[in-house]
């Protein structure tokens, strides 16, 4: 991150530098404000949250975070939904990686013929609008009796994230020196052993980043979850749908729930931010 001072920067007057610095902070804080406000409001009581003049100073309480976690007399808590979300996101991420790693290997290390077509087939599935598939998915799931199950979302999120993982892992595999893999092949290691003992350790950071990204996308997914689940397979976003037509005072409760819903992904994203751009651009940007 430390870049040497360039000529232009040495020439810029201090007042301009300071002004641009303040401007940068101001813009970034404007963008961050809704997130900050969400977390803050969660620490308020309902009476402090529902005021026409927003309170920036208030006595914080953990009450709403607790009631979100355990549920209140009338409403279920977020915990069950969190458990579903964790199981579904983690489950699909594991399957995605298990499918994507061998595929990426076949497309990167002495690639098969037509590897380019295969890569573009994968990415083209991301371009087709999901609404084009939702109706048959609903009907098939209904007929197979798997509507509103975690299995269903695991399956669909795997399909949703597989192209991203294949592209991303392939871009990391390209950086593994061929000689290393050839050495393993000469030693007679077969593919599963090659992957386990040579390839995976070398691309571990990339693998972790790909997994985190798939986890994030599954965690935040809304369209499939809202159309295909109601209770047994319902993820965290579905809990939030209950607030579409809320009754009484709810701002603090909503904010606390939203904060808990976002926290795992915020932490994961902040941790993986160096690799985020590479994953989001499918490996095009290093």
């Amino acid at each position: 991150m430390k870049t040497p001072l360039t000529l232009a920067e040495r020439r810029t007057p201090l007042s301009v530098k300071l002004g641009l610095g303040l401007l940068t902070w101001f813009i970034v804080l404007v963008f961050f404000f809704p997130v900050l406000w969400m977390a803050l409001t969660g620490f308020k009581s309902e009476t402090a949250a529902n005021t026409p003049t927003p309170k920036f100073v208030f006595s914080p309480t953990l009450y709403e975070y607790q009631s979100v976690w355990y549920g209140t007399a009338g409403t279920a808590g977020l915990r069950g939904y969190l458990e579903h979300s964790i199981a579904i996101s983690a489950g699909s991420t594991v399957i995605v990686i298990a499918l994507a790693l061998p595929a990426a290997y076949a497309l990167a290390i002495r690639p098969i013929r037509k590897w380019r077509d295969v890569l573009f087939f994968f990415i083209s599935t991301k371009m087709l609008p999901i609404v084009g598939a939702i109706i048959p998915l609903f009907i098939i799931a209904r007929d197979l009796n798997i509507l509103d199950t975690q299995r269903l979302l695991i399956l669909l999120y795997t399909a949703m994230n597989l192209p991203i993982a294949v592209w991303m892992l392939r871009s990391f595999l390209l950086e593994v020196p061929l000689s290393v893999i050839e050495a393993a092949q000469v030693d007679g290691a077969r593919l599963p052993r090659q992957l386990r003992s040579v390839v995976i350790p070398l691309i571990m950071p990339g693998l972790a980043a790909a997994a985190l990204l798939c986890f994030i996308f599954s965690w935040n997914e809304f369209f499939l979850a809202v159309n295909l689940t109601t209770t047994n397979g319902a993820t965290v976003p579905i809990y939030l749908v209950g607030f579409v037509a809320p009754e009484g005072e709810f701002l603090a409760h909503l904010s606390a729930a939203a904060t808990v819903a976002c926290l795992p992904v915020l932490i994961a994203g902040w941790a993986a931010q160096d690799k985020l751009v590479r994953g989001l651009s499918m490996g095009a940007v290093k």
Partner: protein
Amino acid sequence: MTALTTAPREFALAPPRTRRRGAAWLKRLPLMPAMVFTVVVTQIPFLLTLWYSFQKYNLNYPNRARQFPTVANYRAVFADPIFRTAALNTLEFTAVPVICSILLGLGIAILLNRRVFGRGLLRTLIISPFLVMSAAAALIWKYSILDTTFGVLNYVLRPFGVHDVNWIGVHSQLTIMTFLTWQWTPFMVLLILAGLQSQNEEILEAARVDGAGPWRIFRALTLPHLRMYLELGVLLGSIYIVQAFDSIYLITQGGPATDTTNLPYYIYQVAFQAYDIGRASAMSVVVVVATILIATLALRTISSIFSDETLSRG
């Protein structure tokens, strides 16, 4: 001489002809599970959508004859003024946020590429809107920020003479587009920042020594270098934003009237509120065909972005 020394090795790596076909399949084997899975889960539903679109099929009347094949659904779709509105809204809600988030992203990325106090923290903060669950963010915007009485926005604008604006009711389209721009600007910032940081600092410095001003340098060096990153931003942004559903479902429910109804939301309404599977499928087919046309162009762009150097071993 050369032939002699390389011959044994050649033999070891390339098996005799008879075994080559099997070897090709062996090489393809690791790819197969992912390939088969993707084909089954993503392609078969589309074929079914196509099939349903030629039927009179309504879940409210499960016992009614399905009349296959019929083009009644397609006729209804093309005569439907709401479908047209939804298509135009989709274009608007994609183009405006993509353009705005690219421009804002460019500006913020340039600011963040300077030496600024707390750069790491700023970068961490700016990506947050993109990471936050959009369902959560949409509700926070709706009730906590844009609400006429309790919203922070009207409070902040009060000193400027703006009073109690009903943002979601009166400026519903602006609301949706602003929300999408807020969500996607961080992504553009990250992408463009990566582009800026991959610039060759020596060339920039040389240009400065030669007396080129900042604007000249930006036009002549930075912008051409960023072209690939900007194209990628437009492409990926469009792929995702065109499918925007969460924010519309949660903030405006497509309204008032059909002001913020885009195609995903309209198809959702016809399928899951009217249960008209046939008509919703016909709409999906039209959308998918339009997308394929546009995506073919997009794929061509991608393949120029992912030129041989980026795709193959460098």
